[in-house]
């Protein structure tokens, strides 16, 4: 215990000397102040005492407004606080400030004295590794405590689930920290550790983006397929007889609105859905052994806004297939594929995300530990 406390104190002094710990904490405080300064009301947003009237919700009643306010703060905490700040900007600062931990430890003349003490190499390695994680956990915990009080005081919603951000952000960081540690142990270079970590992070981001594109394309085609099938069913209910006064029957007019050949469209969409489904399966093979940064981050959203709470907009086949604009969500109908994509993504079990990602981290950290324990200094 004496040794662990000494290493803890040393790690704190090291981070303290680099100022990065305090810089990150101050920036976190500023982000939280920004969140606290924002507000929502019946006619728009407010920042401090400045009001921006953007809509008119009418008289919502105090209860509904409180619900909206709570949802607003939770979403802003999740998106600005966690997604943008904690799992993006603050992670970069954390990577930079922790990347030197192992290269510095292992520099010639520095490691010799430590290894000559009665502490096993594995324990020394793991203690250092966990201390790096511990300081990030501390940062996130402080941020979450502040977030808890901001949401509580500003929206009257004392939401304990926001503390899930601590393990989630820590897990997110730990995947990258494992890479940084492995490269740091092998190369003893801080710069190499940072560069390799950023490259891997970028690679994971690219894979995640490709996965998103595949899911979106699949969802888009699935939505259209469902609509065409509904359209076909609806068409069967319409009168196929042409009106006595001449012209097209109701069914013909309806089918015309759908492009004429619904059966052909359904065949094409079924093939397309199958193709994208195959790509989705391939992507799952690629993703399974890798850390899932995007999905890990989304665990907080899944906890705060569960998929069950999502309400898919109602669809009436009489309105036609509405193929326009899947990319921007201007209408509730256009939002459907995006929501479907999210539902599909959220169907991936949390245990799969956590276990496979931690398995990757375990292997990477294991390799780093093995190298640290075996190498001569």
């Amino acid at each position: 215990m004496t040794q662990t406390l000494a290493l803890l104190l040393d790690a704190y002094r090291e981070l303290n000397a680099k100022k990065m710990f305090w810089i990150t904490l101050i920036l976190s405080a500023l982000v939280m102040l920004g969140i606290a300064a924002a507000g929502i009301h019946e006619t728009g947003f407010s920042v401090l005492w400045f009001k921006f009237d953007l809509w008119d919700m009418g008289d919502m009643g105090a209860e509904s407004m409180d619900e909206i306010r709570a949802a607003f703060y939770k979403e802003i905490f999740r998106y600005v606080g966690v997604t943008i700040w904690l799992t993006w900007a603050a992670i970069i600062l954390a990577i930079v400030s922790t990347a030197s931990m192992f290269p510095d430890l292992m520099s010639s003349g520095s490691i010799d004295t430590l290894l000559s003490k009665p502490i096993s190499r594995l324990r020394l390695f793991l203690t250092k590794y966990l201390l790096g994680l511990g300081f990030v956990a501390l940062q996130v915990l402080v941020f979450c405590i502040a977030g808890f009080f901001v949401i509580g005081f500003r929206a009257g919603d004392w939401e304990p689930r926001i503390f899930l951000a601590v393990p989630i952000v820590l897990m997110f960081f730990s995947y990258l920290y494992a890479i940084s540690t492995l490269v740091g142990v092998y190369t003893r270079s801080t710069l190499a550790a940072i560069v390799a970590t950023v490259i891997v992070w970028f690679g994971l981001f690219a894979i995640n983006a490709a996965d998103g594109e595949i899911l979106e394309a699949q969802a888009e085609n699935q939505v259209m397929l469902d609509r065409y099938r509904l359209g076909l069913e609806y068409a069967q209910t319409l009168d196929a007889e042409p009106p006595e006064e001449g012209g097209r029957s109701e069914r013909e007019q309806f089918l015309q609105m759908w492009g004429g050949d619904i059966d052909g469209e359904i065949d094409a969409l079924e093939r397309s859905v199958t193709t994208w489904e195959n790509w989705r399966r391939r992507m799952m093979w690629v993703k399974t052994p890798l850390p899932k940064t995007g999905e890990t981050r989304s665990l907080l959203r899944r906890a705060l806004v569960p998929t069950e709470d999502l309400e898919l907009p109602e669809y009436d086949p009489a309105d036609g297939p509405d193929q326009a604009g899947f990319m921007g969500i201007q209408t509730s109908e256009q939002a459907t594929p995006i929501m479907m994509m999210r539902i599909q993504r959220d169907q991936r079990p949390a245990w799969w995300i956590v276990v496979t990602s931690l398995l990757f981290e375990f292997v990477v950290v294991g390799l780093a530990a093995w190298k640290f324990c075996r190498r001569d200094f």
Partner: protein
Amino acid sequence: MSANGLVIDLKGVEKRYGRKVHALQGVDIQVHPGEVFGLLGPNGAGKSTLVKCMLTVVRPTAATGEVLGAPLGDKPTLSRVGYLPEHARFPRHLTGRQVVEFFGAMAKMPKAECKSKAQELIDLVGAHDYADRKVGGYSKGMQQRIGIAQALVNDPDLVVLDEPTDGVDPVGRRDIREVLMAIKERGKTVFVNSHLLSELELICDRVAIMVGGKVVQQGTIDDLTIDEKHYLVTLDWNRETAAPGKLAEALGVALKQEAERGGVPVLAGDLGGVRCELHGPKLKVMVTDPPAIQPVIDKLRGAGIVLKSVEPKRPSLEDLFMQAAGEGGDH
């Protein structure tokens, strides 16, 4: 202590780096309790590697033996060992005092004891003026003093110092030497690794000379130099006025030129049954006892040669080292 009463008893220590580098080639080292033991050798001889093998910094390819009575590599035993590595670098964000306390804690010392011991050692190594400043601003000499303090903080039975006077000015070297003598007086065993031979000569009880990954000589300096002890007779002899052959003629001996050093011929031969070498005006008489030199002095004076001085001599550690290094290099 090992069963045979040794603090360090290493046998057959081997270290290979890949297939090409054979850094240690079966090293045997024995260090007795309470002695200052010096490990000498040229750069690349394997001194630091051997020390690192003892302290688990480097994993030996093969080795048997004990350190403080425990098998080589036994981690708990290291709480009784203090170590200052070569080119020691301490965390720049710590003060000298924090460095000493940190390594005390790493040696499992209780906090209060660690603090008081740190103060005592800071005073001992003369670092009190800068002990509360960050190590990042220290000179090499300051770092070495703090390094020695951290090596002693756990009150070790064995202190291993790798080039402790490296980069230290002459005053600092003298101070460090005094610290080492103080440690020795406390009954601790000191293992010093250095190539500063004059330093070691002043403090070491026993030495080992390593060349090319092997120990080529080991023992007390007296033991190692016994064969090379001699008397040096300085003659009032002027090369300008008399040729070296004239001395042989005067003494009635045949001196033959055997070598040349610094442009001066070395003449050697027997004088009264004793081997002598003439290096210019200096006559090296290969005897160790005062009675044995007397017949030679009588002969010289009988030949009318004036003697300026007669001194008993033994080779310096440097001579020994150079000789061993030469022989080792020939292997």
